[in-house]
C-alpha cells in the first residue's frame, strides 16, 4: 500500500471517481489532457469563427484553454496554467493559427488542435528532404497565409544548396503534394495546412525557440525505436542508411532474473524480514523534531544575522563563519548532538580540550585518527593502520584506549590484512562511549557553559548598545 501526500493525483476523466494513473511518459499525460479538452461534453467549445469574408474553422481561444486547464488540472494561478499550456503547445499538441511561435496566451488568440497523425508520440524524426519538400510546395501556393517567414526562406535557400543535385526530385515531390492537396475540400485544407505547419514548427522551430524534440542522451537507448528509423511524412521510401545514436550500444534490456539473481533476492528479502523497523508514527515524530530543531538555522525559513549574502550582496556571514570566534548559534548547535559538535572544527577543539581536562582525550584522538585513515590514498593505508595500532592499542601504547575484548580481538584479526575499515568496530565502540559518557558531561561542563554564557551576554550587550544608540539619537 502506497503512502500518498496531501495532493493526490486525481482526475482528468469524465468519471471523477476514476483516478488517473501515474504515468511515466509526459506525452501520454498530455494526450489524455488533449483528448479530454476536445471532448464534446467536458471540453472547450470548438467552433468556426466568421471573420470578414472568410470563415475560420475549428478553433478555440487561448482564454478558453487557460480556463479549462485551471478547472481540470486544479490550477489556481492563470500564469501556471499558461505555462503548462505553453509546454503542451511547444510539444505540438495545439497551436496558434497565426503564429509560428508555439505558446499559449490568455486572450482571444485562436488555437487549433493538432491531428493525431502528427503527434510526437509517433516518434517522428523527419528528414531534411521532407522539410525541403514542404517548403518547396509552400512556394507553389499563391496564398498570403502560406507565405514563407524570413527564417523559412533562409532554410529553403540552405536546403537548395545542400540538395542541389536532387532538387529536381524534391520539386517533383512538392508538385505531387500540391496536386493531392488541391483535391481536398477548402475548409479541410485550411485545417490540414495549419496542422502541417505546426508540425514543422515543432521539428524545425523558429530560431530562438526551444526545440522540444531534443532528447536526454541517457534515455535514448531504451526508446521504443532505438534505431530511430526515419519514416517520411510525405510517404517517400525509407532512407537506405539508418543513422545510429552516438550512444548506441546493443540495447541493454533490464536483466531478466537468472537463478543466481533470484537466489540473491531471496537472501536479501530474508535479511529485510529480520530487520527491526520503526512505526510510521515514531518515524514521523522523529523527522518533525529534527526539522523543527534546525529550522532556526535554515536560511530559507529563518532570517540570519548577518544577512544572507546572496540577497544582501554582503559576504560578512561567511567571513564570520570562517573566523575562529563562533557565534552563539553555532555554539548552541554543538549541544544538539555529538555529531554536530565534531562537525565544527571549533566544537571539536573545545570538546578535545574538555577531554584533556578529564584525561580521556585519547578516545577522541583515536576516533579522529581512524577518520583520517579512511581518507588516505590506498597506498598509505596499511602503514597508517599499523601506526594507529602502535599509538592506541598495542601493549604499552602511549595513548592507550579501552576496548571491550570482543572489539579488541576483531581489530587484532583485521590488522593481519590492514585496510581502511580495519577499525570500524573499535571506532564504533569508542564513539558510543564518548556519546553516552563524555559528551553528556561536556555539555554540563564549565568550558561549554561559560562559552555559552559569554555568547549570550555578548549578544544582549550588543542589542543593549543598539537600543541605547537609538534612544539617545
Amino acid at each position: 500500500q502506497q503512502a500518498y501526500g496531501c495532493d493526490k493525483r486525481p482526475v482528468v476523466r469524465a468519471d471523477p471517481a476514476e483516478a488517473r494513473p501515474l504515468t511515466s511518459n509526459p506525452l501520454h499525460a498530455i494526450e489524455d489532457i488533449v483528448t479530454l479538452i476536445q471532448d464534446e461534453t467536458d471540453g472547450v467549445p470548438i467552433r468556426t469563427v466568421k471573420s470578414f469574408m472568410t470563415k475560420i474553422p475549428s478553433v478555440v481561444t487561448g482564454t478558453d484553454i487557460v480556463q479549462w486547464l485551471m478547472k481540470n488540472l486544479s490550477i489556481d494561478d492563470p500564469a501556471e496554467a499558461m505555462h503548462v499550456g505553453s509546454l503542451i503547445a511547444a510539444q505540438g499538441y495545439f497551436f496558434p493559427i497565426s503564429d509560428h511561435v508555439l505558446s499559449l496566451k490568455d486572450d482571444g488568440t485562436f488555437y487549433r488542435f493538432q491531428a493525431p497523425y502528427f503527434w510526437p508520440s509517433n516518434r517522428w524524426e523527419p528528414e531534411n528532404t521532407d522539410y525541403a519538400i514542404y517548403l518547396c510546395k509552400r512556394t507553389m501556393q499563391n496564398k498570403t497565409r502560406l507565405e514563407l517567414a524570413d527564417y523559412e526562406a533562409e532554410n529553403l535557400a540552405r536546403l537548395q544548396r545542400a540538395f542541389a543535385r536532387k532538387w529536381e526530385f524534391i520539386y517533383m515531390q512538392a508538385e505531387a503534394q500540391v496536386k493531392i492537396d488541391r483535391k481536398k475540400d477548402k475548409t479541410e485544407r485550411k485545417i490540414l495546412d495549419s496542422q502541417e505547419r505546426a508540425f514543422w514548427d515543432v521539428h524545425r522551430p523558429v530560431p530562438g525557440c526551444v526545440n522540444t524534440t531534443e532528447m536526454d542522451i541517457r534515455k535514448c537507448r531504451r526508446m521504443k525505436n532505438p534505431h530511430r528509423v526515419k519514416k517520411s511524412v510525405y510517404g517517400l521510401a525509407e532512407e537506405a542508411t539508418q543513422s545510429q545514436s552516438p550512444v548506441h550500444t546493443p540495447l541493454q534490456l533490464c536483466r531478466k532474473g537468472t537463478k543466481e539473481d533470484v537466489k540473491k533476492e531471496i537472501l536479501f528479502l530474508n535479511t529485510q524480514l529480520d530487520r527491526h523497523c520503526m512505526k510510521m508514527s515514531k518515524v514521523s515524530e522523529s523527522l518533525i523534531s529534527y526539522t523543527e530543531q534546525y529550522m532556526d538555522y535554515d536560511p530559507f525559513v529563518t532570517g540570519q544575522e548577518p544577512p544572507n549574502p546572496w540577497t544582501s550582496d554582503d559576504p560578512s556571514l561567511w567571513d564570520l563563519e570562517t573566523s575562529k570566534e563562533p557565534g552563539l548559534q553555532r555554539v548552541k548547535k554543538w549541544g544538539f548532538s555529538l555529531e554536530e559538535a565534531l562537525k565544527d572544527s571549533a566544537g571539536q577543539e573545545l570538546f578535545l580540550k574538555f577531554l584533556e581536562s578529564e584525561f580521556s582525550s585519547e578516545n577522541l584522538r583515536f576516533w579522529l585518527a581512524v577518520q583520517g585513515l579512511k581518507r588516505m590514498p590506498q597506498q598509505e593505508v596499511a602503514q597508517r593502520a599499523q601506526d594507529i595500532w602502535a599509538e592506541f592499542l598495542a601493549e604499552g601504547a602511549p595513548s592507550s584506549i579501552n576496548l571491550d575484548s570482543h572489539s579488541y580481538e576483531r581489530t587484532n584479526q583485521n590488522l593481519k590484512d590492514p585496510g581502511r575499515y580495519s577499525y570500524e568496530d573499535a571506532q564504533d565502540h569508542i564513539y558510543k562511549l564518548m556519546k553516552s559518557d563524555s559528551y553528556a558531561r561536556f555539555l554540563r561542563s564549565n568550558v561549554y557553559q561559560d562559552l555559552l554564557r559569554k555568547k549570550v551576554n555578548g549578544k544582549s550587550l550588543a542589542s543593549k548598545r543598539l537600543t541605547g544608540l537609538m534612544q539617545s539619537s
Partner: protein
Amino acid sequence: NLMTDESPRVPEMATQEVQPNETLTHLKTESDTLKTKLEEERAKLHDVELHQVAEKVDGLGQFIMKTRRTLKGHGNKVLCMDWCKDKRRIVSSSQDGKVIVWDAFTTNKEHAVTMPCTWVMACAYAPSGCAVACGGLDNKCSVYPLSLDKNENLAAKKKSVAMHTNYLSACSFTNSDMQILTSSGDGTCALWDVESGQLLQSFHGHAADVLCLDLAPSETGNTFVSGGCDKKANVWDMRSGQCIQSFETHESDINSVRYYPSGDAFASGSDDATCRLYDLRADREVAIYSKESIIFGVSSVDFSLSGRLLFGGYNDYTINVWDVLKGTRVSILFGHENRVSTLRVSPDGTAFCTGSWDHTLRV
C-alpha cells in the same frame, strides 16, 4: 577496469546446497512469497501518514524566492553542477564538453576546461576545493587539480580515475579528495582511489542504468544511495559492496536522490513527475510530492538545511518547492527557458543553484 575480476573483499554468498529440483519457477515462487510476507509485515507499521502527524506543525508563510545571480558562459545545455565547501564557488559541466569553475557570488569564471567528449553529465568539487572531477560520454571520471595560476593549462594535469563500460552519470568525492564514488549507464556504482586509479569496491544490483547517487551525510557513515532506470533506489554499504535496503515505488526512471539532512531518510525525483520521501528506519516510502498539473519529470532534488523544504528541478523548466512534512507545494519558480537539469543547495543552505538546458545557471 570493471571487466577484470578484481573486486576486493566481496563477502562470499552463503552457499546453499543446490537441490536438483530447485527450478527457476520454484525459486521465483519462494521470492514472491517472501515479498508478500514483507509487505504484510511493513503494513503493520503503517499506522499513520507523515502529513497527518505534521498537521500540528505551523504552516510556512509566503516565500519570495528570486534569482540572485545568473551565470552565462556555457555554449550548450548545462547538465550538472556542484558547490565548493566555501559556499560561493561552483563547478558546472555542459553538453559542449566544457567544465567551468565560477565564483558564483561575483559571477566571475575562474577556470575552464574542455573535455575531449561531449555530454559531460557529471561533475563534482573536491572537499578541499583544490580539484574538480568530471565525466560523461567518455565513460570515465577524471580529476583536474585547480591551479592558482589562471594561465596554466588545467588539461595537462588531468588524472583519469574511474573507468566504466558506459556513460558516467554521476560522481562524488567522499569526505576526502582521495576517493571518488561513481555511477554509470553500465548499471553499476564504484568507489575509486584517486591517487592510483584503483577500484576499491564495486556495487552491483541495479538492473539498468544508474543515474544518480548521494553519500550519507553522517561523519561516521559508510553508506550511499543510488537511483536508476530500473525504478529502484538502493542503499549500499561502502565497505562490503552489499545492497542493504531497496525501494521500488516509482513508476519510471529515478533521476535524482538526495539524503534528508539527518541521514535517516532520502528523497528521490523521477520521470513519473513525482518526488518521494523514503525513511530508512521504517524501510518504506513515507511521502509523495505530486500535483495534477505537474506532468513532466523531475530531474534533480535537494533539501533546505533543516529538511523542511524540498526543491525539485523539473523538465517543464520550473522549480517546485515542497513542504516536506505537510506534503504540499509552497512555491513554483519560473525563470529558466528550458529544462532544469541539475539543482543543489549550497553547503550553508543560503541559496540553491540550478543548471538548465537553456545554457545558464541561476542562484
